[in-house]
């Protein structure tokens, strides 16, 4: 139910609103084209900002009937903002008012609205409100009459219009004569000035400004003046600037732009030398009267001057004109005011008794020349003057070269122009610079110039000559010079002094009777950072130090005085270390560096203005310091050598024991009796020496001596001596032919020979043996089924016994005595001679000896080497057995066994035995 009632009330409200709207509209239409339901009084008011304002909204009676509207329903709005209802007042049923105490809160439009049915807002009427201010009184009215041409003047009056009125405000400049009002002047586009073109002089004019707008009008103060008193005239036009007879005056003439009947003028005249910017002015009192020309005095001869002038009313009323256009003129010539600065250069290279004197002088300044210099006259007088008459020269240039004998001369130079000559410049050329020189010479830049300062000598100086030149590596020092008065103790160099260049400055004092030596200093007009930094290198790099070297910067690169060098070095990851170095040094040693480290170093050259860095140089410190390697290597080498020496000595002392362990005696299989079984003897070897040693037929008659073991001792030593000699020879030859003999204990073959000599060992024999593996009886008492003969792979030469048979096909056995050997004769007279020692050395290793013995026993080959020499019985037994075995197998051959060299009494001296070897021609020896 509630919902239905709300819906019905809302619909009724809408219907009422539509009804009111239609009513208002129909009313408006029926009453005319536009007829509102009310209106506001006042209509479109113009209000002063800040004032009070009250508006009335009056409803039409006809509206009241249709809309049931009451004035209390009126709402006032400024634009879209509702005016607070406190400002409303319902006067009666149809009138509502609104009051604003301060119109500055107002805006346009102000509308009167009504709330129909309490909710629908309907606009009744609206007005546009204009807000503004009345004009203020114009202030500071002033006028000026500008001369536009000879007969045309324009008066411009300006004033301060005051505050903004926010309204259209008209300003009007009014003027009048005492009995006549002149036309008003209305500004165009501005509100603070106006121009009057018809200006009449000599009549007082009253001028004022009137400002007027919708809210009121204001009038400035009235000012009275004669327009002729506020004139700013046009400047005069200079006609001529002419020189007169006097070289110090110029006459200026001009034309005034204002006629004298209008006003008389006074003038200001200014002038300057053409190449100067400083104006000088003629005293105003000299030009305070009306005129059209003026003669300016006290000017410099032969100088170009520029003139300008201005004017104003003579009585001082009004304004100065602008300065006129400039006009220039040149004063007349006069004699040069001073002589040219004079100096000399002396070459004494030709001969010791004469000089080449270059006299040089400077051109006079324009202010000193007073005209065009036509020539110079030079006079040279020798001192004493009586010795020679003075020599005179007239030159057009500024130098003169003279060849003079050594001595003192007075030189004078005068400059001449069209008017006359200058005072002479005098220079004394003494025989020697023996006078006092200046002291404490300094040079420094000041005010953009290079100043030189010195302390005068004690004697009075006539003048100083300052020489300077730019020091450069690429060019010679071209000397420039200047003169200064003898009273001065400082000056600046008057020349083209360039910044960043080094100047060598020398000061000479000149006396009336001589000249002092020059004192020099160096200076820069302006310093800068060096053009580049020094290129640093390492001269030597150690473990913890590095010697750096660099070339000093060239003068042209320095751009200033090098105050110090900075060496910057660092490791790749480390901090940079800086060291300042005196600029006179070219080498520096960096110390406390880390070993085996990469360093980066660069160098900066610093002037007073900053430093410039040179290229980066890298170097690596050494891992070891000087002598460290030597300290390590030398002791190590010494220790190594010592140990080797000790080892050699040890080996030497223990050679027998060593030989026993690492170089046991190896039985020579070729000397075994089984060699006789060999079907052929190798034919590879051809030792001619054997032929020579055993010539054919040397063994033509072989006898076999059977020696019983017991009979060994029956040989006298005399009988055996020849054989011992032969044995010695044989051992020596074997040492030469074989490189194996002395392999034990690092002994050389020669050593083995010497060893053999000493010990008569069988090493040489064994070294020449072709080693073979002879498996006769199996290992460890195992009996092999097949006898195996295996040729050694060794390329060592065979023993004589192996080589001999083929080498000596027709040769018989050599009868050369040998200590112990078997001798074999063949039917073809082939003789294979082999000397085998039966060594009876005790140091033969028992296992080897046992095996050999076992094998040999089985082969019925006696091995004497395994038998000690002292055991004669044991020795003889194998020999007997060998003879028994060999006898049936060697057909027609007589095996003769001779046992020789058994003359050893001690163990060491027991000769080594060789196994008997039988060689057959054309085949291997059976082993």
């Amino acid at each position: 139910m509630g919902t239905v009632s709300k819906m019905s009330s809302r619909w009724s409200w809408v219907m009422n609103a539509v009804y009111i709207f239609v009513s208002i509209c129909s009313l408006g239409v029926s009453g005319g084209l536009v007829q509102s339901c009310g209106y506001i009084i006042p209509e479109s008011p113009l209000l002063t900002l800040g004032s009070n304002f009250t508006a009335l909204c009056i409803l039409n009676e006809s509206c009241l009937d249709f809309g049931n509207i009451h004035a209390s329903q009126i709402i006032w709005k400024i634009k879209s903002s509702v005016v607070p209802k406190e400002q409303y007042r319902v006067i009666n049923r149809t009138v509502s008012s609104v009051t604003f105490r301060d119109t500055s809160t107002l805006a346009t439009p102000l509308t009167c609205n009504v709330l129909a049915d309490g909710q629908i807002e309907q606009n009744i009427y609206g007005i546009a409100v204009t807000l503004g201010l009345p004009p203020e009184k114009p202030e500071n009215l002033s006028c000026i009459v500008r001369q536009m041409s000879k007969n045309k003047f324009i008066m411009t009056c300006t004033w301060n219009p005051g505050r903004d009125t926010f309204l259209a405000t008209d300003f009007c400049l009014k003027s009048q004569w005492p009995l006549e009002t002149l036309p008003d002047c209305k500004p165009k586009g501005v509100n603070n000035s106006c121009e009057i073109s018809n200006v009449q002089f000599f009549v007082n004019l009253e001028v004022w400004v009137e400002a007027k707008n919708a809210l009121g009008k204001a009038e400035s103060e009235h000012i009275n003046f004669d327009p002729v008193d506020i004139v700013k005239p046009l400047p005069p036009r200079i006609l001529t600037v002419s020189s007169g007879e006097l070289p110090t005056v110029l006459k200026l003439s001009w034309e005034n732009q204002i006629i004298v009947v209008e006003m008389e003028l006074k003038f200001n005249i200014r002038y300057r030398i053409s190449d100067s910017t400083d104006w000088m002015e003629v005293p105003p009192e000299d030009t305070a009267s009306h005129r059209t020309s003026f003669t300016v005095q006290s000017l410099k001869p032969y100088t170009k001057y520029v003139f300008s002038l201005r004017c104003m009313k003579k009585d001082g009323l009004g304004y100065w004109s602008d300065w006129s256009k400039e006009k220039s003129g040149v004063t007349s010539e006069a004699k040069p005011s001073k002589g040219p600065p004079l100096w000399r250069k002396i070459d004494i290279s030709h001969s010791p008794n004469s000089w080449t004197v270059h006299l040089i002088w400077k051109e006079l300044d324009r202010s000193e020349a007073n005209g065009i210099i036509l020539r110079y006259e030079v006079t040279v007088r020798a001192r004493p003057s009586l010795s020679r008459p003075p020599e005179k020269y007239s030159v057009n240039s500024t130098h003169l070269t003279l060849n003079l004998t050594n001595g003192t001369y007075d030189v004078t130079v005068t400059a001449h122009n069209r008017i006359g000559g200058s005072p002479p410049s005098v220079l004394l050329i003494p025989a020697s610079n023996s006078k006092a020189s200046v002291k404490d010479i300094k040079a420094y830049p000041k005010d953009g110039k290079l100043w030189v300062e010195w302390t005068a000598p004690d004697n009075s100086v006539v003048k100083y000559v300052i020489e300077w030149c730019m020091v450069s590596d690429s060019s010679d020092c071209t000397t420039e010079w200047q003169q200064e008065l003898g009273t001065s103790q400082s000056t600046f160099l008057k020349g083209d002094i360039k910044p960043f260049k080094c100047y060598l400055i020398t000061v000479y004092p000149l006396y009336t009777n001589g000249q002092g030596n020059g004192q020099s200093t160096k200076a820069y007009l302006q310093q800068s950072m060096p053009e580049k930094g020094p290129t640093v290198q390492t001269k030597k790099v150690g473990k913890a130090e590095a010697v750096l070297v660099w070339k000093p910067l060239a003068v042209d690169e320095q751009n200033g005085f090098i105050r110090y060098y900075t060496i910057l070095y660092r490791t790749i990851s480390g901090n940079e270390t800086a060291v300042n170095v005196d600029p006179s040094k070219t080498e520096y040693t960096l110390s406390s560096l880390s070993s085996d480290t990469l360093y980066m170093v660069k160098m900066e050259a610093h002037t007073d203005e900053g430093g410039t860095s040179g290229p980066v140089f890298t170097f690596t410190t050494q891992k070891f310091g000087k002598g460290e390697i030597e300290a390590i290597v030398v002791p190590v080498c010494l220790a190594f050598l010592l140990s080797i020496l000790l080892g050699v000595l040890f080996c030497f002392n223990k050679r027998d024991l060593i030989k026993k362990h690492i170089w046991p005696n190896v039985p020579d299989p070729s000397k075994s009796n089984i060699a006789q079984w060999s079907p052929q003897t190798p034919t590879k070897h051809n030792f001619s020496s054997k032929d020579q040693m055993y010539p054919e037929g040397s063994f033509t008659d072989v006898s076999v001596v059977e020696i019983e073991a017991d009979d060994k001792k029956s040989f006298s030593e005399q009988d055996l001596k020849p054989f011992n000699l032969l044995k010695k020879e044989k051992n020596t030859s074997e040492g030469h032919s074989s490189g194996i003999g002395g392999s034990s204990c690092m002994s050389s073959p020669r050593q083995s020979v010497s060893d053999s000599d000493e010990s008569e060992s069988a090493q040489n024999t064994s070294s020449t043996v072709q080693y073979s593996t002879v498996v006769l009886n199996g290992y460890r008492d195992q009996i092999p089924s097949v006898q195996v003969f295996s040729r050694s792979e060794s390329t060592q030469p065979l023993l004589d016994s192996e080589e001999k048979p083929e080498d000596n096909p027709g040769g018989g056995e050599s009868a050369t005595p040998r200590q112990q050997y078997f001798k074999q004769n063949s039917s073809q007279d082939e003789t294979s001679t082999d000397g085998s020692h039966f060594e009876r050395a005790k140091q033969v290793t028992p296992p080897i000896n046992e095996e050999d013995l076992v094998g040999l026993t089985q082969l019925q080959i006696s091995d004497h080497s395994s038998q000690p020499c002292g055991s004669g019985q044991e020795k003889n037994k194998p020999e007997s057995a060998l003879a028994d075995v060999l006898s049936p197998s060697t057909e027609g051959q007589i095996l003769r066994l001779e046992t020789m060299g058994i003359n050893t009494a001690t163990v060491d001296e027991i000769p080594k035995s060789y196994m008997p070897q039988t060689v057959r021609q054309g085949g291997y020896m059976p082993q």
Partner: protein
Amino acid sequence: MWVPALAEQPPVTLQHHNLCSHAILLAGKIRSNVASLLESYVERQGLDRTISLDSVEGVPGPAMEQGGELTVAVRLGANLQAYRALQTLLGEVLEEQGFHLTPLDMDFHASIQSILLQVAALAYQLEELLALLSHGRPAWEAAGPRPSQLV
């Protein structure tokens, strides 16, 4: 430095002096400007350059010719009358030139207008001087109608 000296004088004397000074200067300026205007006028009108201005119809003759027995006031009155006449004639010339002879020559018209104003100003100054001398009514009332009323 005449201004301070004049400042010490009585106001009437100072005003008199100023008026005299202005009148003299203005008269000189009028003379200069009229001479220039006459040249332009003769040139434009094609008149003979030897035209005599000693006797122009309607312009009184110089007062000095009438003898030294005349008072300053009388002489000033005669001058005033002459300038009034000049003012009238210049007005006529201006009208004639502007409407008939040289309607487009505005510079010429401006020159005539400038002199016309100066003559009017001089006439006013003469009136003031006469008033100061006679301490009575301005003399122009007796001299005839004001030029402004004529122009």
